[in-house]
């Protein structure tokens, strides 16, 4: 974890960046947006924002923290902006409904349960756990989220405890 093996700004064509981080961006988008059409829209926003911002990256070693910070920033903005169109705050607001689909054996169901559980976490915990699951080190998570490394540890522990409670709850 934490080793940056992806493209550097010198070699980071949009195609290379999307190949390396596209799936991660899709997971970040899914962790914020349940609606498939809006998720697709968010994914495009993230891709565009990352590709546009790439020339401003100064330290290639920080590429992963850089792109995931942009992805989360886009997602936060998307969550707030789309609230205008929604009647309730259920999906994003504090203490969002903690309903996870019932457990099942097939892989799709397990992924859906996991994503729903991640979505129901409060934003500060959702961000650190998704970054951790993407393989970022505590240092990179701290840079991406703009918090101290010790705070990363605290948030990750709380996020893990909440996730475990949600996923083991029948």
């Amino acid at each position, binding site marked *: 974890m934490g080793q940056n093996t992806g493209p550097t700004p010198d070699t980071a064509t949009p195609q290379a960046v999307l190949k390396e981080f596209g799936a991660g961006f899709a997971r970040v988008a899914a962790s914020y947006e349940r609606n498939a059409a809006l998720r697709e829209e968010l994914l495009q926003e993230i891709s565009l924002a990352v590709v546009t911002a790439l020339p401003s990256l100064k330290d290639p070693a920080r590429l992963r923290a850089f792109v995931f910070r942009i992805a989360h920033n886009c997602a*936060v903005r998307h969550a707030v902006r789309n*609230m205008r169109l929604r009647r309730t705050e259920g999906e994003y607001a504090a203490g969002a409904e903690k309903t996870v689909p019932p457990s099942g054996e097939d892989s799709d169901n397990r992924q859906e349960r996991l994503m729903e559980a991640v979505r129901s976490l409060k934003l500060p915990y959702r961000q650190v756990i998704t970054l951790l699951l993407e393989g970022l080190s505590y240092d990179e998570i701290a840079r991406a989220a703009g918090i101290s490394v010790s705070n990363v540890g605290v948030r990750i522990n709380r996020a893990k405890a909440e996730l475990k409670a949600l996923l083991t709850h029948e």
Partner: protein
Amino acid sequence: MSDEQNDRFLAGIGDNWRRIGADHARMHQQLRRTRHLPRLLRLADISGTLALFGVGCWFAWEAIAGQSVFFALSALVLLAVPPALLPAALRARKDSLVWADETPEEVLRMSLARTEAALRMAVLGQWKMIVIQVFLAVLWIAETTGLMQAGEFLNLYTLISLVILAAYAPWLEWRRTALSRERDTCLNLIADFDAA
């Protein structure tokens, strides 16, 4: 949870997490289609302003040539307002793509500030409606007192203004409600960050 339990739990959900994939070739294709959108939007902002400025110049010319108060007032609005709003529009578009420097929490605080500013603008929107109504009243007073003779054109202008007002008032109310909801969301999410 012990460290070992933690690691097992994380490894388990990590496997499921990474199975959620994406079609990066399709993403790249979509990106190629949308990549130039910001530049096109910027160009549209500038072109729109230039077009309105051009119409303003034409109105000013008509006002001078025909000694028309109606054209003079319209020219004043068109020459002053669109160029004044252009820098703000360009800056907003530019800022909307710069996400590398802020942290997610800062994005929320920025969103809150923008939402509150937009709410204040919505209040100004009510004043704009009043200005349009006063402007129409002034034109009609000028017409009926013989200060100007715009005739049929004034009727058309009045009709268009009334249609705009009829559409603008409910839209403004909808926007105020939506912005209030957005502000509440920002406040809730910021409270989550403060508590974390």
